[in-house]
């Protein structure tokens, strides 16, 4: 597939078919989700042997289990006999997984250990060692976040994240002790293509002033200023590397958003000096920032939402949104983060309910023949990219679409390349000749 047909980096124009075409969707399940590092779980969810969570890698259900030696393994959640899910819970602790269809039993290491009536039914001709659960071949972690990948030839997670890990540290490594997941995730379905939300979290601070006007207006209560709380006068930097991207307010002091609860704000302010010493002023003050790790993991610094946009066909996405907090924070601050996130984000959140209204309505417009023939404009700030010592990646104003162009460039490279070697070669060529 000639990628330039769907995304043209020279013009900054994207073809609407990438959001609705069934054939493109099938190809991206294979070429993007079948080959990229995908977020599976947080280390804190599976603290000891036998603890498991179920997760998704695009449309594939998987189960992620802490092993007896402390490592993490992941398997396709599918019995090798007739394809039934071997684990039908969201999380828990188990000694193994027994299929509820015919009773095949697997160990937490994925090995097939028991088959009902094995001797009489198979006459000793079933080689159980060949019929273990399908293992996710690559699993690696970055500061608590566990990722898996189906492609053996994928670069290491560290290489894949590239310089974006530096920005992730402002979310994952603020204080000693790292982070943990608090409570259960919000899960809901949005009738829109997965790239609409993933790209917005990657690159779009621009929408906030219009989309979220009503929410910030009522949340800022008496001191609402469209320039300050209303995002219109926002100053900051956007960054892009390897398809990952984000934006942050650039400040020398903390910049809380209006929806942060007082107890959460207190923790952010109280820890500011130690975070500044640990990570420097830029990342310590980054209380407000949007980010996407390519392809479908997004997070908001300060709001502390961490979410995956699971594709569910070309026109639907299933969101799993967790709350991630500093492990060392007091209980009152953790509850403050939870309340702030619940009231602003998630399906009932005052901000996010307006986002999903946009995405679903965009998707509705792609049913029409002219809607599908159209193309969208991603030209904002094109040519204004710059680099700066101390801030990794390609940079631009926070009100630009550099990270979106980077996101679609990576997508296009994956869609058109046969191997990871080719994807990386394309990236290196591009990085050497900046546009």
């Amino acid at each position, binding site marked *: 597939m000639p990628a330039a047909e769907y995304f043209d980096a020279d013009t900054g124009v994207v073809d609407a078919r990438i959001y609705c075409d069934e054939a493109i969707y099938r190809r991206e399940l294979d070429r993007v989700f079948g080959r990229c590092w995908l977020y599976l779980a947080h280390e804190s969810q599976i603290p000891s042997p036998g603890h498991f969570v179920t997760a998704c890698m695009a449309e594939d259900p998987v189960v992620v289990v802490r092993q007896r030696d402390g490592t993490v393994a992941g398997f396709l959640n599918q019995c090798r006999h007739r394809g039934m899910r071997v684990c*039908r819970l969201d999380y828990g602790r188990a000694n193994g997984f027994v299929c509820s269809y015919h009773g095949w039993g697997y160990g937490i290491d994925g090995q097939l250990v028991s088959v009902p009536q094995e001797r009489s039914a198979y006459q000793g001709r079933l080689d159980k060692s060949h019929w273990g659960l399908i293992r996710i071949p690559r699993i690696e972690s970055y500061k608590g976040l566990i990722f898996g990948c189906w492609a053996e030839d994928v670069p290491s997670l560290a290489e894949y994240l590239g310089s974006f890990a530096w920005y992730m540290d402002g979310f994952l490594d603020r204080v000693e002790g790292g982070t943990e997941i608090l409570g*259960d995730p919000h899960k809901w379905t*949005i009738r829109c293509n997965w790239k609409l939300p993933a790209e917005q979290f990657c690159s779009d601070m621009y929408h906030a002033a219009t989309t979220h006007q009503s929410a910030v*207006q009522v949340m800022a209560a008496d001191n609402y200023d469209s320039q300050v709380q209303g995002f219109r006068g926002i100053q900051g930097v956007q960054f892009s590397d390897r398809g990952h991207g984000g934006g942050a307010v650039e400040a020398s002091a903390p910049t809380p958003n209006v929806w942060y609860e007082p107890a959460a704000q207190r923790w952010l302010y109280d820890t500011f000096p130690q975070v500044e010493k640990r990570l420097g002023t830029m990342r310590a003050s980054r209380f407000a920032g949007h980010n996407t790790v390519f392809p479908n993991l997004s997070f908001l610094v300060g709001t502390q939402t961490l979410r995956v946009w699971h594709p569910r066909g070309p026109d639907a996405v299933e969101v799993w949104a967790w709350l991630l907090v500093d492990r060392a924070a007091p209980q009152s601050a953790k509850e403050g983060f939870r309340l702030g996130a619940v009231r602003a984000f998630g399906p009932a959140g005052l901000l996010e309910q307006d986002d*999903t209204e946009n995405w679903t309505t965009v998707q509705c417009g792609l049913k029409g023949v002219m809607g599908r023939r159209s193309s969208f404009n991603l030209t904002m700030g094109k040519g204004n990219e710059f680099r700066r010592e101390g801030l990794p990646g390609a940079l631009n104003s926070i009100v630009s679409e550099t990270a979106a162009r980077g996101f679609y460039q990576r997508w296009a490279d994956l869609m058109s390349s046969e191997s990871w070697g080719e994807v990386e070669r394309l990236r290196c060529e591009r990085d050497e000749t900046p546009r």
Partner: protein
Amino acid sequence: MSVALEQLLVDRAIERFLILEAELLDRQDFLAWLSLLDDEVAYTMPTEALSASGDKAPGDGIVHANTYMDENKAALERRVRRLGLPTAWSEHPPTRTCRFVSNVRVAPEGVGLFRVASSLLVYRSRLDHDGRLIAAARLDQVRRVESDCGWRLRRREVRLLDTVIGMHNLSIIF
């Protein structure tokens, strides 16, 4: 008046209160709806997850370890203030709703306080998209007051039952 008759009248009055509330929400008369809430109201909507035995629930069961909504009076007033703004895009133009309240069960829970369980079915129609039916199990506490309709909502827990909410947002009130 017999105890049984008194109980019947209370049951009926509380059911009428829930029906009045549903009518106000269907009419988008949110200010009138707010006036039905006790100042100490706690409005929550727990998440639903499936977990194995051991950790949190006895036996395989449903766990509620987070909420989709966790509101006090001030937060609900803020929600309603937003709905009054023309830039509250998720509800402008408004979603049309029709609420069916049934299976109302009342039990006394202290002086002038009653625990009220009910089933709610909401038909929700947004823009020109498909209409949706949403079911919820509600567990409320109401307080008897002397004025107007005679009741205030003091506590509400809304259970949507889905482990994955099947729609793009929860911009309506349950």
